């Protein structure tokens, strides 16, 4: 398919076609609740209204977005935090009636001129972590939600039977209907609903529908993701992007929501009613040209998407292999992006929202499914992205086709590929050590490289298998650790150190052993170990640009704030630094990509009519970041002990790991201990591992000290009332709550530094009450 210029109506994927009786499916719907609303114009990027639905009481209402809400929370994820604060209790858990599933947009969401402006931000209380999880996702739903008149939708309560929520932005009507006959798996359900609710039987109308769903596995696992559809007029496929992390799909299915659908009538490039469309078009054209001219020499996002990272990570010993034991592997070249490039369909606008010329959403069309209920069918696989390929390496799957199979089923079953892959990798390592075995794994031979077993594991989750192992394994690594320890099936320390989770969430796919800053990037986070907040490996490890604790803390302040900012606006981060201006390396601060930061300043002003500068962008984030941390504290987490990370992410847990990188570790120890390499060489390996273990643990605590101090938190990691007031976040209930928690910490003696400071070393402040 490389000839190009194929007329849309002639384009063929070769996928298996389905025939459904839509009339029968639709006539089985029973309307539970309806709500008509008056559509208003969007003004300067905001619809100025949010939609509230309660599935227990069937209440549907609108809430006004105030200017104060914009000032404090900006939009997107910030609005989500505000809506959660107003609706849940500190005791709310993922399956509580009052848990709130929120999808928000942000002022940029729906803009078409600049790449990456179609993101939705989803928030809920996560089954994995018991605190707020936020996850961003592309697809058309966010823009259509806003074009329908809402900056956000929040859903509380649970329905009694499977329902669909329909947001008809054409008619100005919301309805909740039972949906007994639709499929549940997303690749089918999204296609069904798109066809059923498109205003006319043509591609244009189908493109004006977007569906949010989660598949059958999301009903059983804690790894449920949300699939956001975007109809591809060429492929005639309801393609999808995932809000993967934290179990949002699990919450969707727990509420018995089969799908949420938004549809709009024709819309224009100025649907968001920006204050200054001329500037938008100019900045958009400028970056489109940059991508056109430079992407092929930089990241190749347009040809292989984020998969280009596989070979780089392998080269730098950062590609997680066999549960993060190693960072590179001889077989890894089999899953380099060049091999996926051969499978991807080319020459198609692959943005997950209109105008994204970075177009990283690659697909394999006409893929023949090898296992499970769809075996033999030809389907479109969206992806794989870097993280999913990284999961392949982690599970020891070195065949691109098996990675596609894994990707396809995770998506359609509604499973987060990252958590699923990382967890399976842990189970496989436990299997290798005999801590798990075939009998203990409900007859699954979960050893590294066994793709059939990994897929069978996923199919069984989707089937609701009640086996003892499956019942625990599908809830993730944290529950598996507890189970293994309870069963006394292995060494507790080994289990704790090798299972790659923090706060109950599985790690995403980077080896962080050699980058202390990146360990902080995973551990000193709000929702758990993900690469959403900071990606500092190269800056720290390769370029050695942030050598001191203070430097690292500054990076762990700036980058999480900067990256949070995208979520407040409904933006994708990739066009920020996955393409860089030609002269970027010559600027004062290349890692920040100053020209693109300036673009975003001008864009936010052009959309909202505000008059902000780059400092204000960081302040917007700080307000929300601190608010979310404070909410974690409110819910009983969000302290130093909750920022714990497993030792596998810091250093070698096993002898094999040490020996595999012996030269490196010996060198490190020689430097730490002030000994010669020969002297270290002669030490026994267990002793060396223990010394390294103690050193790295202490380094991490010292890093936490520096970061908490820089962020304006107590030594136990709690945002202080003073900091909150400085940021203008003066909610009395919030201020009172954090003061109470700080007082409790003080009584318990927890407001102390975590690092062991020797003579000549200084903690960030000698005064422990510096705030």
């Amino acid at each position, binding site marked *: 398919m490389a000839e190009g*210029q194929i*007329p849309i109506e002639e384009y063929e994927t070769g996928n298996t076609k389905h025939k459904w009786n839509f009339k029968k499916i639709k006539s089985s719907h029973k309307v539970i609740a309806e709500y008509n609303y008056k559509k208003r114009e969007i003004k300067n990027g905001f619809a100025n209204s949010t939609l509230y639905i309660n599935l227990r009481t069937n209440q549907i209402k609108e809430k006004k977005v105030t200017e104060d809400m914009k000032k404090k929370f900006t939009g997107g994820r910030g609005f989500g935090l505000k809506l959660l604060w107003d609706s849940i209790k500190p005791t709310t858990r993922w399956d509580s009636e009052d848990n709130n599933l929120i999808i928000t947009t942000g002022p940029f969401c729906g803009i078409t001129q600049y790449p990456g402006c179609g993101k939705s931000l989803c928030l809920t209380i996560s089954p994995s972590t018991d605190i707020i999880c936020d996850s961003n996702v592309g697809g058309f739903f966010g823009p259509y939600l806003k074009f329908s008149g809402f900056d956000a939708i929040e859903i509380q309560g649970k329905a009694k039977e499977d329902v669909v929520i329909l947001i008809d932005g054409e008619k100005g009507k919301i309805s909740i209907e039972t949906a007994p006959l639709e499929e549940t798996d997303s690749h089918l359900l999204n296609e069904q609903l798109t066809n059923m609710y498109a205003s006319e039987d043509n591609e*244009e109308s189908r493109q004006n529908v977007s569906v949010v769903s989660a598949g059958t596995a999301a009903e059983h696992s804690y790894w449920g993701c949300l699939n956001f559809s975007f109809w591809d007029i060429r492929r005639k496929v309801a393609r999808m992007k995932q809000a993967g992390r934290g179990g949002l799909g699990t919450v969707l299915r727990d509420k018995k929501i089969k799908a949420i659908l938004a549809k709009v009538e024709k819309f*224009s490039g*100025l649907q968001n009613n920006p204050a200054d469309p001329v500037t938008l078009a100019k900045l958009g054209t400028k970056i489109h040209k940059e991508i*056109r001219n430079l992407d*092929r020499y930089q990241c190749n996002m347009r040809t292989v998407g984020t998969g280009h990272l596989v070979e780089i990570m392998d080269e730098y010993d950062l590609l997680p292999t066999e549960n993060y034991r190693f960072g590179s592997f001889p077989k890894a070249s089999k899953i380099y992006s060049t091999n996926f490039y051969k499978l991807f369909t080319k020459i198609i606008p692959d943005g997950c929202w209109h*105008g994204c010329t970075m177009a990283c959403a690659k697909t394999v069309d006409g893929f023949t499914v090898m296992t499970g209920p769809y075996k033999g069918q030809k389907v479109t696989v969206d992806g794989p992205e870097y993280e999913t390929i990284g999961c392949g390496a982690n599970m020891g799957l070195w065949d691109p086709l098996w990675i596609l199979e894994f990707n396809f089923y995770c998506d359609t079953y509604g499973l987060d590929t990252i958590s699923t892959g990382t967890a399976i990798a842990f189970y496989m390592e436990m299997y290798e050590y005999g801590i798990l075995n075939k009998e203990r794994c409900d007859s699954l031979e979960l050893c590294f490289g066994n793709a059939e077993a990994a897929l069978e594991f996923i199919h069984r989750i989707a089937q609701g298998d009640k086996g003892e192992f499956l019942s625990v394994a599908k809830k993730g690594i944290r529950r598996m650790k507890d189970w293994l320890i309870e069963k006394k099936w292995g060494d507790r320390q080994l289990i704790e150190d090798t299972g790659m989770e923090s706060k109950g969430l599985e790690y995403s796919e980077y080896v962080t052993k050699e980058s202390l800053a990146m360990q902080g990037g995973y551990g000193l986070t709000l929702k758990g170990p993900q690469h959403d907040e900071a990606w500092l490996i190269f800056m720290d490890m390769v370029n050695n640009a942030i050598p001191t604790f203070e430097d690292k803390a500054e990076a762990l302040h700036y980058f999480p704030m900067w990256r949070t900012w995208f979520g407040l606006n409904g933006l994708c981060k990739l066009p920020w630094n996955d393409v860089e201006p030609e002269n970027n390396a010559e600027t004062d601060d290349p890692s920040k990509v100053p020209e693109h930061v300036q673009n975003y300043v001008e864009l936010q002003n052009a959309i909202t009519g505000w008059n902000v500068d780059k400092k204000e962008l960081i302040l917007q984030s700080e307000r929300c970041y601190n608010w979310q941390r404070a909410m974690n504290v409110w819910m009983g987490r969000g302290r130093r002990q909750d920022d714990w990370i497993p030792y596998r992410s810091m250093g070698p847990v096993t002898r094999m790991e040490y020996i595999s990188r012996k030269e490196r570790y010996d060198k490190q120890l020689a430097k730490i201990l002030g000994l010669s390499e020969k002297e270290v060489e002669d030490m026994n390996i267990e002793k060396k591992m223990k010394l390294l273990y103690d050193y790295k643990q202490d380094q991490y605590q010292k890093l936490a000290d520096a970061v908490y101090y820089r962020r304006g938190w107590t030594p136990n990691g709690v945002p202080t009332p003073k900091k909150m007031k400085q940021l203008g976040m003066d909610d009395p209930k919030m201020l009172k709550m954090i003061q109470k928690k700080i007082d409790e910490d003080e009584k318990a003696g927890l407001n102390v530094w975590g690092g062991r400071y020797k003579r000549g070393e200084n903690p960030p402040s000698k005064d422990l009450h510096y705030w």
Partner: protein
Amino acid sequence: MNHPTTVKIIKFHAEKCKGCLECEKACSKVHFKTDDGQDKSAIHIYKVSSSYKMHVCNQCGLCIDMCPVGALTRRKNGVVTLDKNTCIGCQACVGFCPIEAMAKSDTRIEPFKCISCGACVRACPEKALELIEAKIDDIKKIVYHKQGA
């Protein structure tokens, strides 16, 4: 389906042009119902030292594959046309046009382009513009899609 094999494109005879810009005025009349020319015209004439240069779409069609909503198509007569009503103003075609001939005026979010209507040819008092037939296979371009520089 039968696809067109030829398309009319504009040929410029630089030696005849005197830079009166009647072509631009005629073009903006077609696209914006005004004779402002300049950013409302899809054809542009520039003075380069002592002679003139023309800048206009060559109907290569690369933009067709950039459009996420199918607003750009090659018509039966071979001309690449942008349907303003379908366009969602993303500027992808503007940014990716290999010769930067996709036009954009500040007055409207949707770009516009030469439709080989011949208004400029008819308006040129010096007969410096001509519509000639080209083979689509000779001029067709597709989006860069190779991995690696």
